[in-house]
Structures are given as structure tokens and as C-alpha cells.
């Protein structure tokens, strides 16, 4: 309490003559109070509040914070806010402090390279977790690795018999797995571009999704799970070439995610989401609620699971154990004390927010889209949910409560895929109308319009180090965008 009085006194001292005070209660994002309620002078703005919070929490480095009063960001001094909104000063004013990323990612604004090479539409692009490598899967049955330095093709990997629908990097960056239309999975070595072992066969129809086991549960990465149209999901072991079948869905599995707490989530066209245990493939839970196909799932910790131990500093790790330790640390800070949250987007135009470990009923139903929701994605800090829909809009929702925040309109065709920047401040969307658009979360406006593709954009990815954006589409070229 000493600090309170000191800072308060210091600030008050200067403006004692003119300024009114207001009772404020600073809380963290889960609603836990930071210090006791205190009197703050009305003329302080976000900068001063930031100083106070940093001092209250005894942060060694000064972290940036954003402040929210009843879900609206505070950008002006308190005084202006109070006058505008006519808030009662009788009660303590709750101010929610959201820690922001300490780094800032520049929005991309130009196309740095258009690389042709694929003979058919580019169906998926993905940056490696450290952001130094790029791979793409295409309808010409090849997987290609691209050299980001020279922006030229590096390896062309042939092996699939049909369209390569999905690709996924292992969180330690040592493997790339690709799944094809004919149902086989192939594991590639990104260093040499060679196929590792034979193709993994077992699925009877095409692959719809691949997800790796998080590195903080098991290092080095060996296991991944794949979902298929035939209604099964399979857990594969890269080195043992064995698989465990997760069967139970009556229709095609559309999406699969390996959660940070060691469970697998699958969403299916039979309107259910199932939760599986990973060692034997037992069904733990079934989440029902959707009225039509479940198209997409997202976890609150998904971004950190994807990047594993790699963060914005670009540090490399030598041993798997070290990597595991760092990844676990990063996972725990992102997750906090709250349980893992899951959001599902569906063909019934709605989304549900679940907390699968607490309740098998949804936490919130998020309505507002007028067409099916094709892709949902949690922001890297878990604070926002973005949803891309065929109604040409991207909507932003609060990541903890599921409340509607804002809608980004601007695309003139269905929005296919979205991708967050690593600092959660920018959102990228790719659409059927052949453009990419960058949206600013803070101002809730279009930041950058990126035309250039000649046809539909099927896949977008923002590299985890924030330097580049890659996009691929029906016009058979891969485009790299830079800031």
C-alpha cells in the first residue's frame, strides 16, 4: 500500500488545485484486483495508468498495457471519458488492464515477391515455427519449400498422388507433414527436402486437418494427429510409423487440434465436437450444441502451441530438453490460471465458446454472422477471437467472454482464411475476392488493402517473427508481402 500512497501523492501534489479525483479499481484480465481501490486524479491518461500498474506489479521491465472500462478501450484521459459516458463517481470505477506484447509488428504494405512454380492452385502455405522457412502444398501434388532469403524455390517434393490439401510444421521445426486428397500422409525433412520413410497410409478419404503434439508435452516432436473425410482421426508416430485410430464421428472430421493439456479436439460434420485422450485414443467428452457442420476449431493457446519455444527474439535452442522447458514456460504464461478455451465455428452461422475441462455445455453462443463461419482463430495472447465468414465479413469477439466487439467489412467475397500477427495488434484476412486485407484491432479499421492476386486467395499465413506474410491461391503463384 506504500507504493499507492507514494504515487498517488506524487501525482496529486502537482494538480491539487484544479483536479477532481475518482475512485478506481484496477483489475487484471481475469477480474482479480491489482492493489486496493484508489483515488486517481481525473486528468490522467493511459500512459500514467501504465506507470502505476507497472509499479504496483513490481515489474522489472516496464510492460505496455491497454486499459478497458466496460469493454471499451480507454484512449483519452479519464476526465474526458467520464464526461462523455456520464459514469457515476460514487462507485469505484473498474479498469481492466490488458498486458500488450512488448514488441510491435509492422503492418505489411507491399508485395515483395511473386514466385511462380506450382502448376496448380496453392492450397496451403505455412511458415515454420521460427519463421525462417516456408512451405506450401498445391493441387499439382507437390510440396515446395521456399528460400525466404532469396525468395526463390528451394526444394520441390514429389511423392503425393493427388492434391496436397494440408501441411503442418512440427513445433520444433524439424518435420513437415503433408496430407493429400488420396488420404496418405508424408513426412518431409525441411533441411534436405527429402521424404522421411514411406507414406503413412490408413485414411480412406482425403485429409482435412493435421495438428502436432505440443513441444512442451513431448520433446523432440514425434506425434501428430490427422483428421480425414472418412470420419476418423488418427494419431501417428513419426519414428515408429504406428497409428492410433480415433473413431466415433459418424460423418467427416473437419478440424482437429491437439490441446496444450494433452487432449485432442475434433470437430465434425455430424455437428459434435469430441475430446480424446491421446495415449489410447479414448473418448473423454462430447460437446454438443451446433445445429450443422462444425467447420473450424481454435484454442486460446493455439499460437503458442504452434510456435513452441520460439518467440519474437529469434533465439535458437540446441537441445530438445531446453526447448521443452522454454515452451512449457511460454505456454503457462499464455494460459495463465484460466482453463483452456475452445471456440468452434459452424455452418449454422454461429460460434460457440467452450471450456471443455469445466463444462460440457457451451459458455457462450456467438451469433451475428449471416453465412457460415469458415475459420476461427484466437489472437496470440488469447484476448480476442476472430472469425471469418462467407458473409464477406470478419468479426472480432472478446476472447474470454465471447462478447461481440466489432465487424470488419470491406471484402466483397467470402473470407476464407485469417491470420494474426504475433503481437495480436493486427489481423490478416484472405478472401475469394482475390485481395488480402490487414485490419487494425485497436482502431477497428482497415489498415492496409493488399490487392495483387489474380484469383481467389485460398491460404494466408503471417510468419511468427512478423517479418513476412505469405499467401497462395487459385492463380498458382505464391506471394510474399513485407512491411
Amino acid at each position, binding site marked *: 500500500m506504500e507504493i499507492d500512497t507514494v504515487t498517488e501523492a506524487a501525482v496529486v501534489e502537482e494538480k491539487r488545485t484544479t483536479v477532481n479525483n475518482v475512485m478506481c479499481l484496477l483489475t487484471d484480465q481475469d477480474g482479480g484486483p491489482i492493489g486496493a481501490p484508489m483515488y486517481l486524479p481525473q486528468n490522467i491518461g493511459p500512459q500514467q495508468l501504465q506507470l502505476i500498474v507497472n509499479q504496483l506489479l513490481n515489474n522489472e521491465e516496464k510492460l505496455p498495457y491497454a486499459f478497458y472500462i466496460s469493454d471499451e478501450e480507454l484512449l483519452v484521459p479519464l476526465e474526458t471519458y467520464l464526461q462523455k459516458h456520464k459514469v457515476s463517481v460514487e462507485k469505484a470505477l473498474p479498469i481492466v488492464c490488458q498486458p500488450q506484447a512488448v514488441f510491435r509488428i509492422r503492418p505489411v504494405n507491399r508485395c515483395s515477391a511473386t514466385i511462380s512454380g506450382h502448376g496448380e492452385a496453392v492450397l496451403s502455405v505455412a511458415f515454420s515455427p521460427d519463421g525462417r522457412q516456408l512451405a506450401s502444398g498445391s493441387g*499439382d501434388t507437390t510440396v515446395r519449400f521456399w528460400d525466404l532469403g532469396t525468395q526463390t524455390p528451394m526444394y520441390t517434393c514429389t511423392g503425393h498422388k493427388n492434391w496436397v*490439401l494440408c501441411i503442418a510444421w512440427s513445433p520444433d521445426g524439424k518435420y513437415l507433414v503433408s496430407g493429400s486428397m*488420396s488420404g496418405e500422409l508424408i513426412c518431409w525433412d525441411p533441411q534436405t527436402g527429402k521424404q522421411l520413410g514411406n507414406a503413412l497410409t490408413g485414411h480412406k478419404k482425403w485429409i482435412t486437418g493435421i495438428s502436432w503434439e505440443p513441444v512442451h508435452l513431448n520433446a523432440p516432436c514425434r506425434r501428430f494427429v490427422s483428421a480425414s473425410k472418412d470420419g476418423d482421426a488418427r494419431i501417428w508416430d513419426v519414428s515408429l510409423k504406428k497409428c492410433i485410430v480415433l473413431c466415433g464421428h459418424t460423418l467427416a472430421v473437419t478440424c482437429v487440434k491437439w490441446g496444450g493439456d494433452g487432449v485432442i479436439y475434433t470437430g465434425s*460434420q455430424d455437428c459434435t465436437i469430441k475430446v480424446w485422450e491421446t495415449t489410447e485414443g479414448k473418448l473423454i467428452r462430447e460437446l454438443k450444441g451446433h445445429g450443422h457442420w462444425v467447420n*473450424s476449431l481454435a484454442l486460446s493457446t493455439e499460437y503458442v502451441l504452434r510456435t513452441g519455444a520460439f518467440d519474437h527474439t529469434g533465439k535458437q535452442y540446441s537441445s530438445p530438453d531446453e526447448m521443452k522447458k522454454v515452451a512449457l514456460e511460454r505456454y503457462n504464461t499464455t494460459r495463465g490460471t484460466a482453463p483452456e478455451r475452445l471456440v468452434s465455428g459452424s455452418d449454422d452461422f454461429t460460434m460457440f465458446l467452450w471450456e471443455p475441462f469445466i463444462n460440457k455445455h457451451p459458455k457462450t453462443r456467438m451469433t*451475428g454472422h449471416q453465412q457460415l463461419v469458415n475459420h476461427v482463430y484466437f489472437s496470440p495472447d488469447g484476448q480476442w477471437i476472430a472469425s471469418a465468414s462467407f458473409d464477406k465479413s470478419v468479426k472480432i469477439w472478446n476472447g474470454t467472454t465471447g462478447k461481440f466487439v466489432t465487424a470488419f467489412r470491406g471484402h466483397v467475397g467470402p473470407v476464407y482464411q485469417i491470420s494474426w500477427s504475433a503481437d495480436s495488434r493486427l489481423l490478416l484476412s484472405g478472401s475469394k475476392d482475390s485481395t488480402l486485407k490487414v485490419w487494425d484491432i485497436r482502431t477497428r479499421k482497415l489498415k492496409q488493402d493488399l490487392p495483387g492476386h489474380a484469383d481467389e486467395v*485460398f491460404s494466408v499465413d503471417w510468419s511468427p517473427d512478423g517479418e513476412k506474410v505469405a499467401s497462395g491461391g487459385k492463380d498458382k503463384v505464391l506471394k510474399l508481402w513485407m512491411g
Partner: protein
Amino acid sequence: MPQNEYMERHRREHGRRFDHEERIRKKEARKAHKHSKQAQQAIGIKGKQIAKKNYAEKAQMKRTLAMHDESTSRRKADDNVQEGAVPAYLLDRENTTRAKILSNTIKQKRKEKAGKWDVPLPKVRPVAEDEMFKVVRTGKRKTKQWKRMVTKATFVGPGFTRKPPKYERFIRPTGLRFTKAHVTHPELKCTFNLEIIGVKKNPNGPMYTSLGVITRGSIIEVNVSELGLVTPAGKVVWGKYAQVTNNPENDGCINAVLLV
């Protein structure tokens, strides 16, 4: 007609004859020969009937055999790569080709210029008045002919009471009144049994609209609150238009397509 299960009873009490199995086996073995002899001898319509039946059986058998063959021999699943790759999330969705979309949009534009609705059934057969109404003769001598009975399905609001017979010109028979319709959502491809709110437009004329006559091609308003559709503002939509696609007076039910 047997009045009881006396054969079963006899069998229960006395058992079958000792050579029963043998006789069945022989009868079964002889069946093919008997059938063949019959097939060869039969002439005329009987012959044709037998030949047709035999052909159908043979075709069915061939089909079954082919199916079994397929499951045992491992076939290569369409190994030729097709043109026009699409990502996994678009694979299950029907997508019309680009040229078709373009021509569709042009057509739509033209229609909008002409001020027409774009509905699933753009044209319907006009229904003449004498088909729509039956003349009811009234009066002591049955000479008056001003009363009409509607011969098509109708929708009558829940609060409706009939007028006294002297003033009731149009009778809407209770047997042909409907309150619910089977409405198909064209995108979800599901059908729901929804309540009718009203008749928006009958293509045959405004009089039929106001009478609530439902014929093929009529636009009806249905209660979609249970489908959970939402407006951009997040409010639940409860009334939506649908077009009737069948002839309700013949079928005894109303089938309709939701207009989205």
C-alpha cells in the same frame, strides 16, 4: 381361410414326418428343373412374364457379384489428378463454375431492372376463376348463385370467425385450411415443419392473396424463430418468406422453399 394356427399346433403335438428334410431337399433340387421346363413351355403373356422375371433376377445377381468383387480386389482410388484444386474447407461445398455465376448475376441484374422477384418458381400455371371457386347455389329454390366455395388450400388466421351465412360470399372449407408448411432451407438442405404467418402474395391475383389462398408458386410468410437465423445486428429473425412448390390441394400438405 384357416381359422386357427392348426398346422403349427399339429406340428407341435406330433412332430414332422420323418422324411421331411429329405423331401424339402429334393423339392429344392428339383425346383430349377421344374422352373426351366415351365419357362420353356410357357407361351404368350405368361412366357413374357417369366422371361422378364428371370432377366431381372439374373441382372440382380450379376450386380451383387460385381459388388462383392469390388470390395475384395483393391482398386486404385481415382489416381488421375483432376484439374481445379480446391482447399479442404471447400471440398464438400457445391460450387457453381465461374461462368455460370457470371451469367447468373447478369440475369439477376436484368430481372432487378424489370422489377421482378427472383424466386425458385418464376412461372406458374394461371388458375382460372371457375377452377378456383365452386358455385354454391342457395335460396329456398336453389336459384341464387352468388356464393362461392374456395377449392384450393387456404390459410386462415388464428383469430378468424366466419360471418353470418347471409353475408358470407366466400367459404373457405375447414378441411383445406392449413397452419403449417414443410419449409426447405436451400443452403442447409434441411426441411422444417414451420407455422405459417400469412400469405404474402398469390400469383393469380390480389383477391386470392387477401383470401389467403395457397396455390403452387404462392409466397407465404413462415415463422422461422426455431431455426435461429440472425440479422447483422444479432437479433433473431422470426418471419421469412417461402415459396410453395407443390399443389397443396392435391397433396394434403404444403411444401415450400425458403427465400434467402
